[in-house]
């Protein structure tokens, strides 16, 4: 999308007799705060935006088309690339869809392994979201704290599945490997340390006066607007809607686990502002720790993967599965025509919905606040474009 078609508004005279006109700026696609290759066309009157029009597609890798070419098992490593900041959830979504179509039941230990991996991945992703948000707003130190903790997690993931980012840990029917010997103890050690780090992090940045004033009352999204735009996950809960797929439409072993669903309370300003979206993620870090502890305590022995034929051909049909990824409710609409290749796979991601609301909430805010909006919505460009 070029700048053509976005004509500069006719010059106009202000009350004091100055002649002025709107500026049309191109922000991105290579802008450090856009979290990936992402562009905004900003119409501004001085420092105040009239609107910011998102222009996406720079990271479109036609993953949905690839699904139709590579087969059911073969697509799994590609799902890692849908959202590489939280790859575990994409693994989980694809396997859930395939299992639903074929009627496969995952062994209970396999489900526990999945939930542990998911929740570690949620911490992994939320740390990056919180850290980079602080950095975008101008505080560099919190980012280094977040990345330091994330590095421990990378080590844990590496031991679990041999990979630090694109995990490919799950398989249709379960998970690739059981937890390695001694790994559970390492996770517990990490959690014990990590919970104190969250408190430290809150002292350092979350309730820092400069930080909260930058975020409070900025880009308020009402609950009704959030639902209309289909915002999901922390963005939805930040607007005060207490909905979490894990609790309200449970899958896997989540019904057996006890956890709270934090929602935005308008602590620093209005419910649904940037601060609420941020703090929901911070609170979710602790809930994830709770879930992992319970899983490690109560997971049964047994196999981790069901018997699935190598030549996997689920019966013809379609299904829509949802799971709570780090960016919220992720939907997989998968159609099978009974052959060894998926007929169609549509991935509905949280970031896609989140970026579509930017134009609506960016009216009459400062250009500098656009950065806070992008960061608070936790936009991950590859997940938008797929």
């Amino acid at each position, binding site marked *: *999308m070029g700048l053509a078609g976005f004509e500069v508004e006719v010059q106009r005279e202000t009350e004091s007799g100055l002649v002025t006109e709107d500026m049309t700026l191109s922000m991105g696609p290579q802008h450090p705060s856009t979290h990936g290759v992402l562009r905004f066309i900003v119409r501004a009157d001085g420092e105040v935006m009239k609107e910011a029009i998102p222009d996406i597609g720079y990271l479109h890798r036609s993953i949905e088309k690839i699904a139709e070419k590579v087969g059911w098992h073969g697509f799994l490593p590609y799902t890692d690339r849908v959202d590489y900041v939280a790859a575990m959830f994409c693994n989980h979504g694809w396997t859930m869809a395939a299992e639903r179509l074929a009627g496969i039941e995952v062994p209970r230990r396999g489900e526990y392994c999945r939930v542990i991996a998911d929740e570690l991945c949620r911490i992994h992703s939320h740390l990056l979201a919180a850290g980079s948000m602080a950095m975008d707003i101008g505080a560099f130190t919190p980012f280094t704290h977040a990345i330091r903790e994330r590095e421990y997690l990378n080590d844990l993931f590496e031991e679990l599945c041999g990979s630090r980012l694109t995990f490919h840990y799950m398989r249709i029917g379960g998970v690739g490997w059981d937890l390695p010997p001694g790994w559970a103890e390492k996770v517990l050690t990490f959690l014990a340390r990590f919970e104190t780090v969250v408190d430290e992090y809150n002292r350092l940045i979350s309730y820092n006066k400069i930080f909260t004033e930058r975020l409070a009352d900025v880009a308020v999204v009402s609950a009704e607007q959030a639902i209309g735009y289909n915002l999901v996950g922390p963005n939805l809960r930040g607007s005060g809607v207490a909905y979490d797929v894990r609790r309200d439409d449970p899958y896997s072993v989540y019904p057996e686990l006890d956890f709270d669903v934090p929602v935005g309370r308008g602590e620093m300003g209005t419910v649904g502002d940037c601060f609420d979206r941020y703090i929901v993620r911070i609170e979710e870090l602790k809930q994830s720790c709770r879930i992992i502890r319970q899983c490690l305590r109560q997971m049964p022995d047994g196999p981790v993967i069901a018997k699935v034929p190598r030549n996997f051909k689920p019966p013809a049909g379609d299904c829509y599965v949802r799971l709570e990824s780090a960016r919220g409710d992720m939907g997989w609409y998968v159609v099978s025509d009974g052959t060894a290749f998926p007929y169609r796979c549509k991935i509905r991601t949280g970031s896609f919905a989140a970026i579509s609301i930017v134009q609506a909430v960016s009216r009459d805010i400062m250009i500098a606040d656009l950065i806070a909006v992008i960061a608070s919505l936790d936009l991950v460009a590859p997940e938008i474009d797929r």
Partner: protein
Amino acid sequence: MPLDTAAIHARLRERFGETIGDLNGVGRDAWALVPPGDIAEVARFAHDDGELGFDCLSNLSGVDYPKDEAIQVVYHLFSYRDRHWFVLKVNAKRDDPVVATVSGVWPHADWQEREVFDLLGVRFDGHPDLRRILMPEDWPGHPLRKDFVEPEEFHGISTSRESLLRT
């Protein structure tokens, strides 16, 4: 109050009669067919009706079925208020797919419809800003159609390369 799919289907039938197709499938994935021109009205009713209360369009996808000469648009409706689900499907003519837009009902549909337009070439009648969203503006054709043939080059850039490993 949450309704089961049979009750939701009955409620839609009550209002629109035979315009709403038969109920197919079971449970969460149960669906009914709606003609392409009527989907906007059905969506408006599903959103506004006190009993149905579908305040959220969870997903909108397009699927190409060349055998049936159709491009199917699938709407997954969800109600946050009542926590119930329903799926509507629309079969558009493959050679000239036009479907009424639901972007006025759920703002989320705006971008989702642009995506279906971009990748499958379905034109959404009444959409305020139907432009390509993921592919370049001047990309030839619609990649998620089953008969799409990848162009050999785009603006002088080759879309394939020789493998260095092949001798």
